[in-house]
């Protein structure tokens, strides 16, 4: 409104009659600088102090590479399994009415609210060879706790809500008329899912997958208890940073921290692009 009347040519902000822009922006920038950007810059500065050679010689240590690989494949496996079951849970909670639905819907957020250390000891106790689930699997020769499979289970627990909560609003907004029309034209349930529902929710599902993957990659609390913490087999990068700090190898910890920061940035970029795709698709 007022913007069209007196708009200056290269104004970096639209005029507003509301007060408080300059002070609130200043405080926001300073606070952000002190708590988030400044400390991150210090880490990058310390990393720069290592030089390219020093940086890469730390990252090419077999233990770092091995743990990076373990981190990536366990996080990928956990997000992939969750993509299937998370979609199923989101679908069932949105589309069907059944006793306990509201309770189940609230329970989805449990991993957000439950401290990771609690999840860690609970999962480790459940899946240990003498635990409720572990003792059922032990006769079959399946070991979960203290193996890489344990890492996957813990990552599944902490990242499930990311997928469910990203897909749920999209399922809510799906136009049921399309499915109805397809059904009237003789499409089977599987066909309706594959050709109408799945393409509509795919961008959101991928966003949820990326969010879950990012969360799983950085997880520490729930994994330290259930992983075997055996280097290059059942140890992930956050555990390795902790191990380096315990040995006062600050350079190693810093280099690995920078690597993880870089991976976070790449994932953040991917998530932003995916979200833009979702917005284009659904016009929200």
């Amino acid at each position, binding site marked *: 409104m007022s913007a069209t009347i007196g708009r200056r040519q290269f104004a970096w902000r639209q005029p507003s009659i509301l007060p408080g822009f300059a002070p609130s922006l200043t405080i926001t920038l300073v606070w952000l600088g002190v708590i988030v950007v400044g400390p991150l810059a210090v880490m990058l500065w310390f990393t720069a102090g290592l030089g390219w050679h020093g940086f890469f010689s730390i990252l090419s240590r077999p233990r770092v590479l091995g743990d990076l690989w373990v981190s990536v494949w366990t996080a990928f496996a956990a997000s992939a399994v969750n993509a299937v079951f998370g979609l199923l849970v989101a679908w069932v909670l949105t589309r069907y009415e059944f006793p306990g639905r509201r309770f189940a819907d609230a329970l989805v957020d449990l991993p957000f609210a*439950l401290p*990771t250390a609690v999840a860690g000891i609970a999962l480790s106790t459940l899946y240990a060879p003498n635990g409720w689930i572990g003792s059922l699997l032990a006769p079959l020769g399946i070991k979960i706790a203290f193996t890489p499979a344990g890492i996957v289970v813990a990552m599944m627990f902490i990242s499930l809500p990311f997928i469910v909560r990203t897909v749920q609003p999209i399922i809510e907004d799906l136009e049921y008329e399309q499915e109805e029309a397809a059904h009237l034209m003789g499409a089977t349930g599987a066909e309706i899912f594959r050709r109408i529902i799945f393409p509509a929710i795919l961008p959101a599902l991928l966003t949820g997958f990326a969010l879950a993957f990012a969360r799983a990659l950085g997880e520490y609390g729930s994994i330290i208890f259930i992983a075997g913490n055996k280097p290059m087999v059942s140890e992930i990068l956050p555990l390795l940073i902790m191990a380096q700090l315990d040995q006062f190898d600050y350079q190693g910890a810093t280099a690995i921290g920078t690597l993880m920061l870089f991976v976070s940035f790449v994932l953040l970029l991917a998530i932003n692009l995916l979200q833009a795709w979702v917005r284009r698709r659904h016009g929200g």
Partner: protein
Amino acid sequence: MAVNTPAIETYLVNTPVREKPFPFAKLALITVAMLFMALFLLLPLIVVFSEALSAGLGEYLSALADPGVLSAIWMTVAIAAVAVPANVLFGIIASWCIARFKFTGREFLITLIDLPFSISPVVAGLLQVLLFGTTGLFGPWLSDHNIQIIFALPGMILATTFVTFPFVARELIPLAQEQGNDEEEAAVTLGASGLQIFWRVSLPKLRWGLLYGVLLCNARAMGEFGAVSVVSGKVFGYTDTLSLAVESLYDSYEIQAAFATASLLAMLALVTLVLKAALEWAHRDELHALKRKKAAT
């Protein structure tokens, strides 16, 4: 517009999707989804309370009355008591500047605020060590002046503030953007001052979002493990928070005491979930009214 809608169309639009063409498939899907949730979400919660009470109520209560656990409760509350208000204040100020004004770089600011969400808690702790540890940037100055930040409460507060940084701001910013500035602008033209607008117009509008953000921020601040684990001295009964006490007890094979302590955090999580569901319920009516208001005009 809605008045002219034929009855059959209103019926189709307003009737929730309940009757699916494939009742067997529906039943199977519900069963699998609920079994999955029971196995992966409910069972871990149950095992916490079952292990905590495994030696009876007396043992449970005496585990909680341990001075180390009591000190951990105090540490946890102390950290949240600083980190949560700090992030509330920041969230309110940041949402005022980002949601009420349009300027270049707004999206980038939001991305920066969200950044701690995608950074591993262990890296968050590492940052504090690099700043305030003995070999850190401010390490020499701090040791000259006999100030201890790492392995003490200040470092744990800083690490927790970093980890919970986006929680309040990211609830308030979209909500304030959604609500728009009309009421605030009307208040300005009526001669209200900035603070009057904030206290009497904006804050009441944002109250639900603020409560929601505080709830989630507090849950994370009280339960944080990775970040405080790096910067805590990890002395049970001295610098342990509840989460760290769970680890200390578990590692020294005091399993029942570890689960008793964990049950406190699990109860905090349950209270958080109940309040969150209640807020969402209340908020949902408000959103519905907003939507209907929009449709009517």
